């Protein structure tokens, strides 16, 4: 069975008591000593490994030896190419609240100009124009709460 996370794919085969895991040219034998409560105690080629794993939709949090990795599980066939991202769309780099909207649709803006001010936990963050252009669409209002990666404004 093949499982893909981000750009990495792992092939897992049950071998009765344990599993065989393969990625690229690496192949190891994995035995589960204990599993439960979000914790896996494994023997990977004889080496004892404790992993903490959590899932939230496609997200996978894995901690091994104090290092935490956030993975995204891919479901089945991936569309290559995908939709062409519009380059002028600016997104929120953090969750928070829109503190100020300094421009309106149709306004000409210059590179570096502060367009929107976000605030989270009493910290301010400026959303600046990446280049000269015109505000094609404004997606947010002052006072609105936004999630990380939410589209704020489109600059043409």
């Amino acid at each position, binding site marked *: 069975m093949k499982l893909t996370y981000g750009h990495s794919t792992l092939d897992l085969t049950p071998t009765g008591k344990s599993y065989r895991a393969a990625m690229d040219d690496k192949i190891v034998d994995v035995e589960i000593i*204990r599993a439960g409560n979000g914790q896996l105690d494994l023997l990977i080629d004889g080496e004892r490994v404790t992993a903490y794993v959590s899932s939230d939709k496609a997200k996978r949090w894995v901690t091994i030896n104090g290092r935490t990795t956030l993975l995204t599980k891919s479901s089945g066939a991936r569309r290559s190419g995908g939709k062409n991202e519009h380059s002028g769309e600016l997104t929120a780099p953090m969750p928070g609240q829109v503190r100020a909207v300094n421009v309106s649709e149709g306004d000409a803006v210059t590179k570096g100009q502060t367009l929107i001010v976000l605030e989270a936990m009493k910290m301010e963050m400026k959303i600046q124009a990446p280049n000269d252009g015109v505000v094609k669409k404004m997606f947010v209002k002052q006072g609105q709460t936004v999630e990380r990666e939410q589209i704020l404004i489109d600059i043409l």
Partner: protein
Amino acid sequence: MFKKILIANRGEIAVRVMRACKELGIKTVAVYSDADQDSQHKQFADEAIQIESYLHADVLIQAALSSKADAIHPGYGFLSENASFASAVDSAKLTFIGPSADSIRAMGDKAESKILMKKAGVPTVPGYEGLESEDEFRKAAKEIDYPVLIKASAGGGGKGMRIVEEETGLVEAIQGARREALNSFGDEHLLIEKYLADAHHIEFQIFGDTHGHIVHLFERECSVQRRHQKIIEETPSPLLTPEIRTRMGEAAVEAAKAVGYYNAGTVEFIFNPTDSSFYFLEMNTRLQVEHPVTELATGLDLVQWQIRVAAGGHFPYQQDHLSQRGHAIECRIYAEDPANGFLPSTGKLLQFIEPHGPGIRVDSGFRAGDTVTHFYDPMLAKLIVHAENRETAIQKMEAALRDFVVHGVTTNIDFLQDVLSHPDFAEGKVSTRWVEKNMGSGSLFPKDRPQAVGFHTLIAASLADLSTPFGHTAGNRQANTDGRNESDPYNPWKNPGSFRN
């Protein structure tokens, strides 16, 4: 002694104060906002009262009166350094657990306190207070020479603060700092001073009673900062000799005496390691976030003493009775993403496993299943260790960080491990701008690391994904095995041995 104390705060500090109350046999009242319905501090208290905001002084005092509390502990942040709140508490015939309203007022304004310190003979950073127009700031900046620091007179915690490298950035910095200052403190006054680039931040804990006895409880080195906020603190500082420690301690006590200080307070200094000169930065008239390192090194419970002293008790220790034992380090565990400019991360805590062991202390206000929102400061917990010397304390902290598992939000735990294992940290060379510089050069926390997903990480994720119950029970204390599919050959739950302890 008090019978009941209302804690006008939230999160780990509210829980910390309630613990001290419980130990002293005092009942506790929590206040909580809508966003904190399910919070730990609400559940930990004997009573809990819902409020709209932790900043509404009248409502907090009313809550204390209606619950028949005799004192209010403000914690840190929120109203802890608000002089009008302290005096309103007094007027309501309640006890404010902290210094007098007058001391808070005198030290609360950075500009005013700087003038006071100059008078008291405590060294201060060159700069100007009380400027209004952008022109005045421009002239002052030119005179003290760039880089300069603009900061809110009423400020703290890095809010309303801007470093200005050259004149072109001055006006925007003033405007931004003013806006932040107004939002955070309701006061837009700013001061300007020389920015000392490679300085260390060293502060002294002060403690006094209402009978005129005041001592210092030694220093805390707080130079590991990002965005002007501390992330690692330790005591003793690796930079201080006994002579300099004595001089700085005496200056700190003088600063506190100048405002008739009592209860717990902290005098912050900027320290220049090249010539061992030090300057008064500000005094924080409250308990500090990093108070636990002082507690571990001195053996004193600062919160218990705050309460006893507020009730009129004597602080019994003389300066020469006090000493630092071993070495203590604190790491602040933040829900933030170091690879994304340390911006806050929010979400539901899928796992939250705190480390345990000899010499390890965790002050936290969260548990698995809790939600981290964008409404409040993103600090999840403080991890504090105590060991016989600095080297072993660093080792203990590294091990404790490896045992701290937080899923559901991105944290700085990996980043903190990188800082602790960095040779500059081992040598005590970390100045306040060190994080910024080393992140930029990539010598710290290289940005490309997340790309290289480990083989073991993938194996663990895959095995967990082969089994539905695993994903569903993650973060849940109870193992739910009902949903497992017995006929699935991939299912790791199939083997009954898997559940043996």
